């Protein structure tokens, strides 16, 4: 069954590529073996076959058979639209292509990467790196463990709006969102989708790991317009970036501890120079932006770090510590 279908589809492709003029469905039925004689059965099978070819990316064209007979639809595939254009790669170029295909291994686009390599090999390109010297010791990978990645990529590719349930940071309940997706970006190892939030009437960025349940299309392909000049990386970057560090904290750190704070210190007084410091302690000044986040961070150092100033930071840290004691 499946073999007969493969044979039929193969003949159909060759038939459609071999003609310059449009062929009617009836002409195709005559030329390609394997179609039933019964008109309704043929029509159904031919419709399915056309759909399969389109899904494979075969550019099936339809048009009028002749200017005099505009009611009769004909079919053809133009060689120029079908064929991969001439592509010649130097050995070093082909080698990085092989490395690129490995990036997606076991991730959402792995099949697509393998399909692309197959076609490039078919074009005479050898993507293997036989001596393995090109990139000794580099192993790049991207994972797409978030189930939302696949549907969102399809939505971005086909320009379709989506709806999904989203739990914003710190919120206890998820909310329904409708988004015109502009792109997906991986930043610091996390996937984000950026676009126009129809409910909020504003640009929004969502973390894929916080999407709960299924992502559904809420409009037909082509119904999303990405504003000209949109740089999705930049949209995600500006959403994710840390606000300027406008505040300054004075901290006392035990000797040999608090590296995670010392790295960002703008000022440091050795223990001996600080008049109020006990032996084995340093005093540093560190800039910070958000008091809540910074208090969390300082609290994580426990008894190794003490806030001297400002008082509201000191209070916030004490509150965290009391919470951990409870």
């Amino acid at each position, binding site marked *: 069954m499946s073999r007969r279908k493969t044979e039929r589809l193969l003949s159909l492709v*060759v038939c459609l590529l071999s003609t310059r003029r449009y062929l009617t469905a009836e002409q195709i039925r005559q030329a390609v073996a394997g179609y039933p004689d019964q008109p309704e059965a043929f029509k159904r099978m031919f419709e399915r076959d056309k759909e399969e070819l389109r899904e494979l990316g075969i550019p099936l064209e339809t048009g009028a058979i002749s200017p005099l007979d505009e009611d009769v639809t004909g079919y053809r595939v133009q060689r120029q*639209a079908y064929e991969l254009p001439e592509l010649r790669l130097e050995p070093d170029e082909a080698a990085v292509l092989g490395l690129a295909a490995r990036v997606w291994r076991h991730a959402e686009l792995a099949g697509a*990467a393998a399909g692309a390599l197959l076609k*490039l*090999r078919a074009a005479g390109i050898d993507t293997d790196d036989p001596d393995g010297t090109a990139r000794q010791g580099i*192993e790049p990978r991207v994972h797409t463990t978030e189930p939302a990645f696949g549907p969102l990529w399809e939505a971005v590719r086909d320009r379709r709006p989506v709806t999904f349930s989203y739990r914003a940071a710190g919120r206890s309940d998820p909310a329904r969102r409708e988004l015109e997706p502009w792109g997906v970006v*991986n930043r610091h190892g996390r996937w984000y989708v950026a676009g126009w939030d129809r409910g909020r009437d504003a640009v929004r960025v969502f973390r894929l790991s916080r999407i709960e349940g299924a992502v559904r299309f809420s409009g037909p392909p082509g119904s999303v317009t990405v504003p000209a000049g949109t740089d999705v990386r930049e949209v995600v970057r500006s959403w994710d970036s840390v606000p300027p560090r406008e505040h300054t904290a004075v901290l006392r750190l035990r000797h040999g501890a608090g590296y995670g704070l010392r790295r960002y210190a703008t000022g440091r007084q050795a223990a001996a120079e600080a008049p109020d410091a006990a032996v084995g302690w340093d005093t540093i000044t560190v800039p910070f932006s958000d008091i809540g986040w910074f208090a969390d961070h300082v609290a994580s*150092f426990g008894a190794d770090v003490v806030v001297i100033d400002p008082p509201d930071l000191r209070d916030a840290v004490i509150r965290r510590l009391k919470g951990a004691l409870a």
Partner: protein
Amino acid sequence: MSEPKGRGAGHAATSAERLQRLLALVPYVVSRKAVGLADTAAAFGLSERELVDDLNMLWCVELRDPDPYCPIDLSYEGGEIVISQAESIGRPLRLAVDEASALLVALRMLAEVPGLEDRSALSRVIAKLEAAAGEAAGPSAQVAVQVDRPHGDGVIGHVREALDRRRRVHLRYYVPGRDEATERDVDPMRLLVVEGRAYLEGWCRRADGVRLFRLDRILGIDVLDVPASVPGIARPVDVDQGLFRPSPGDVHVVLEVSAAGRWVAEYYPCESVEELGDGWLRVRLRTPDTQWVRRLALRLGEDGRVTAPGDLRARVREDAAAALARYASG
């Protein structure tokens, strides 16, 4: 509206997939001077028998109208494939949007990888592929993987140098979980770029094991005048299984976090995550070292609590009490 398609892995080849293969097979042979059955079967991941079946199917294609003719003529006598007539399918099909995007997104990511010296090959192949893909290359601009740059280019340069010259390195490495700057000698194995972060994989002579070092946590690096010597028992990390795998000796930790602490479940690899209502989560994880969990518990304050093991919970209380004592006396 239609449902998005799921991934369709793990099934026998469908007619469509076999058709794709057949359409690639003809140009594969046509574009090469001498093509053997065995090599071609290997290139397509087929047995020779399956390949011969594909070739027979191609040879049998027949168009019946107006006059019957066989558009493809080929032979594979003596183990060499010759296609003397390929008719209209002598060139491969264009790249689909997914295919062009998979390669272009990956290539652009590689172009950002610090220390990759083949930048010129990368930009050349990106330009050629964009040209060949034509319109199908468009949507790839809407997917991007950003690669973090380590602080200062000195670290990456030294890592590359050590890998290329196969030298041992001395690292001053920050371990945030213990808030320690550690000193160690490492025999480099690979540079991994996983999820946009760069890691040096190497044999750590202090731990006597394979370890990963995040490049942005390397405080100092010296390339030693000593050849790297990675023992035969060293097994590279399987990057496809995730970088951090639990091991049998790990401690089971159970944490409960409020809505404000839910980020914990995203940030750390968890064994299970359970909703407790009101936005609270119960998170189970395994770790060889609980020091970082104590620090995490202090950071979370009232937004989290360690519920198991009991002694870890007691340590968190001690840590918090000791820290509070500094404020009481100060």
